[in-house]
């Protein structure tokens, strides 16, 4: 059974379509990147899947059933910038929030939740920070805390919105290793991703969207120059072929992204 099935999904904000008639399926046990230019609807695709925005048409199924019935199987890592990091709470407390869904209405988190949270912090190498106030963390540490919070949800499929945004190289490698561990244990991980360069290295599946779905499938099959051109339009430059997994991307001609790639290219 597929971990995720999206059929005919259209999402609009005030009649302005953000996603047009998206169809895609993700088999269980894959590590998939969603890529596309800014405003392509990557975040919206995740939010629609999690029922955070209501679609105008179509539906998404998690392991064959609607999200509302499968919540326990889903873990979510929102964008780091979406919360106020000056909120008066500790690292451990934030991670325990991941258990709130299975605690029900009135039960408080207790010893068990604490132990699970510490275990998750151990996995992201943040156990030493458990009692820290969250504003004292670096960007990479904040991201790891969010990851730990999703890990304690003990889900079958994880949705992560730009987990590599603004994190240092060490953290990025640590997160990738963690994601690959998750896949190895049979979980499905869906990641909104910005850095085209690393797609073939990190992921085995990829979905290219730009309001419409351009392509979705194994990286080796769909991460091609033609598909990338269709996704990014003229705002992308290519180097020659390499590694046989697709094309090397030099830059998208957009600020920020472009410099990132240029640096990587220089390092090569």
């Amino acid at each position: 059974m597929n971990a995720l099935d999206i059929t005919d999904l259209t999402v609009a904000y005030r009649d302005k379509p953000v996603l047009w008639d998206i169809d895609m399926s993700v088999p269980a046990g894959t590590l998939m990147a969603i890529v596309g230019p800014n405003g392509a609807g990557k975040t919206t695709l995740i939010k629609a899947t999690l029922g955070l925005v209501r679609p105008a048409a179509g539906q998404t199924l998690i392991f064959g059933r609607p999200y509302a019935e499968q919540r326990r199987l889903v873990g979510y890592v929102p964008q780091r910038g979406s919360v106020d990091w000056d909120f008066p709470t500790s690292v451990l407390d934030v991670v325990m929030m991941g258990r709130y869904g299975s605690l029900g209405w009135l039960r408080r988190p207790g010893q068990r939740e604490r132990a699970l949270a510490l275990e998750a912090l151990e996995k992201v190498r943040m156990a030493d920070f458990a009692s820290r106030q969250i504003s004292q963390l670096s960007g990479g540490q904040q991201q790891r805390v969010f990851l730990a919070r999703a890990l304690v949800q003990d889900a079958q499929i994880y949705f992560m919105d730009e987990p590599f945004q603004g994190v240092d190289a060490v953290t990025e490698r640590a997160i990738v290793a963690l994601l690959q561990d998750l896949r190895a244990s049979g979980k499905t991980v869906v990641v909104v991703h910005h850095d085209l360069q690393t797609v073939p290295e990190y992921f085995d599946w990829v979905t290219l969207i730009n309001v419409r779905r351009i392509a979705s499938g194994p990286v080796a099959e769909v991460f091609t120059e033609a598909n990338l051109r269709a996704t990014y339009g003229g705002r992308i430059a290519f180097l020659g072929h390499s590694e046989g997994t697709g094309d090397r991307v030099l830059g998208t001609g957009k600020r920020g992204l472009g410099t990132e790639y240029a640096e990587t290219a220089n390092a090569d």
Partner: protein
Amino acid sequence: MELFTDYTLRTVALGAALLGVVSGVLGCFAVLRRQALLGDAMSHAALPGIALAFMLTGRREPLILLVGAALAAWLAALLLLAITRTTRVKEDSGLALLLAVFFGFGLVLLSLLQQRPDAAQAGLKSFLFGQAAALVERDVVAMAALGLPALLCVALLWKQFKLISFDPEYAASLGMPVGLLGVALTTLIVVAIVIGLQTVGVVLMSAMLVAPAAAARQWTDRLGVMVLLAAAFGATSGVVGALISATGRGLSTGPTIVLCMAVITAVSLLFAPERGILWRRRRIALSERVPGA
């Protein structure tokens, strides 16, 4: 001074403490959810509710007046949502507009009531700046009847309120009814406001939501501690301010309480360990003296 028996003072102190605790606790959520100014608009908006409740029933029954106040404050919050959701008018404009219009309409109703011959309306004006000395037992009973269930709600829904204040989208992904919980929290904030109206008055009530929370935040990094501290700060300034006003010469209670609270807030902002302004200054000075050590 001789006008007050100990019993009256006890009533006043109890009422002020109750108001301080409830507004301190709920104010934390208002401030963390960036609704500090919504509190201001809603407390001003309560005025026509009080006047209308009195007009319709003709009685100064505290519970009836407070329910009227709550309904009006709630309506203002609802209208704000409608205006900001359906038009391009921004939240700040909506707040200022609703505050002024509701309050202005309240003043119209008050002046309409003044034409009445009966004496019962005379006390309504004390809702502007608060008059703790006028608190009687049944007022305090009404305050408790609204305030204690509100506190109980916060205790029961603690983890929900914490999560929707910190990360509402994540809460929604866990299946929490975030919209409904937000409405519940706003309703509880309205309750905190109406409890304070008689003592602090509509004009300054918002300060009792914002200041205890802002002061408490400086001393701790834990929401639970912050809420307890805010309750303590609110109660302290409430009692001290109300007693000063009740025994002093014709001082309105609202400004006295707000000033007490302002002192606590200023001390917190300046001297709180770790966060306080002077504390941070000292740390910077120390780190400059020992470079790299």
